[in-house]
């Protein structure tokens, strides 16, 4: 291991979301509703990663993520990783896998979409990962990253 000093302090138990696209940490905070969370949350933005790359990191004490939350994060930052920490050790480390089709993470932005009128889960298909473009499998309208961030917020 390198002897470089960590810019962000380690957490005891909880979740570390690493390799978030630079500037997207605030969107992650919104998705997880961390602004209302009562325990320690550390947000690092534009941290150097490698020689030229930058990234954001969000560390959350005593909090696990649901599968739905993980997929939501993947939508705005497909390269992010989720690490689960116990007693300062990483007990699970994983890249977020965004499925080709996924259900019920976000509402469709089209007010005339049937999913906004009947009791039915939304379902989207990933058209492009970067820049993000998803298509509602019901109304067939597409949503880009801005639309997704808007509905997630």
């Amino acid at each position, binding site marked *: 291991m390198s002897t470089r000093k960590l810019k962000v302090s380690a957490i005891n138990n909880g979740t570390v979301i690493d390799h978030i696209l630079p500037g997207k940490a605030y969107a992650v905070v919104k998705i997880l509703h961390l602004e209302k969370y009562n325990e320690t949350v550390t947000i690092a933005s534009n941290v150097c990663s490698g020689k030229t790359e930058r990234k954001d990191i969000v560390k959350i004490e005593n909090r696990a993520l649901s599968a739905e939350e993980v997929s939501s994060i993947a939508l705005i930052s497909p390269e992010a990783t989720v690490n689960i920490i116990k007693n300062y050790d990483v007990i699970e480390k994983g890249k977020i896998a965004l499925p080709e089709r996924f259900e019920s993470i976000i509402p469709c932005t*089209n007010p*005339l*979409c*049937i*999913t906004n*009128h*009947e*009791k*039915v889960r939304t379902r989207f298909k990933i058209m492009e990962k970067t820049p993000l473009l998803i298509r*509602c*499998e*019901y*109304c*067939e*309208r*597409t949503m880009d990253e801005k639309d997704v961030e808007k509905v997630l917020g």
Partner: protein
Amino acid sequence: MLEDIISIRDISKAEIEFIHEKAKEMERYVSCGTDLARGKILASLFFEPSTRTMMSFQSAMQRLGGSVIGFSDTNNTSVKKGETLIDTVLTMEKYSDVIAIRNPLEGSARLAAEVASIPVINAGDGANQHPTQTLLDLYTMKKEFKALDGLRIALLGDLKYGRTVHSLAHALSMYDVELVFVSPEELRMPKGVRKHLNGKIPYTEIVNLDELPEVDIVYATRIQKERFADPNEYERTKDAYRIDMDSIKLLGNAKIMHPLPRISEISNDIDLMKNAIYFQQAKNGIPVRMAILSILLGVER
């Protein structure tokens, strides 16, 4: 194999060809009828008005020897009392063998198909899809020119909001054709559709009708007043793309198609010209819908 007809995106070229082949076989029953679908019932669930689509579905089912139940507006139905689409479909499927649904909410036909245990046909879901229109448009072109490959087709008018031209362009990209989009700048073919065509088929975009190259077909669409913020702009645009005895010279020998209803895009005196095939196009809705109904019912020969 085909279970429902919901979106042109779901239908492969082989399936389109199969439907057209069956439609050709159905031509002989168009005037005298058949009993292929005897005892079968079509539930025609029209949550909003439609003349051509609803009537042609009913006509097609009756030509096949089947019968039709349903509604053409929701005033006298439980929908008015607040019944959900899901409940309406779950009830109607108990009374019928196939459903044709038109509903202004986008994705409604997809949802209906997911909950129904019988085949569902999308007869128009808002601004989204109207796949049987596209299938009959392609059939008309094929009937007129024997094959689609090699054709140069102009799509004219409101290319931004017209769902018909979006689906048509999408379907035509499966063939070896060339498209010419003729529209005012503000009603251009949307980026998403153009992107889908890239690398598949060549297309050009022009603004003025007098720039039109030689084409085999001109597919005209309705230019709707409500799409324009400025009423003067609407009047100018409407006139600029109107096909009449004057402007028809710019079209050469092209066949003229239109999904109908037309307002003033094509003047009435064009109707008698042999290049005007839009009423033939409407007529082709019958064999094509007969083919679709018989395939989904599993009664095609």
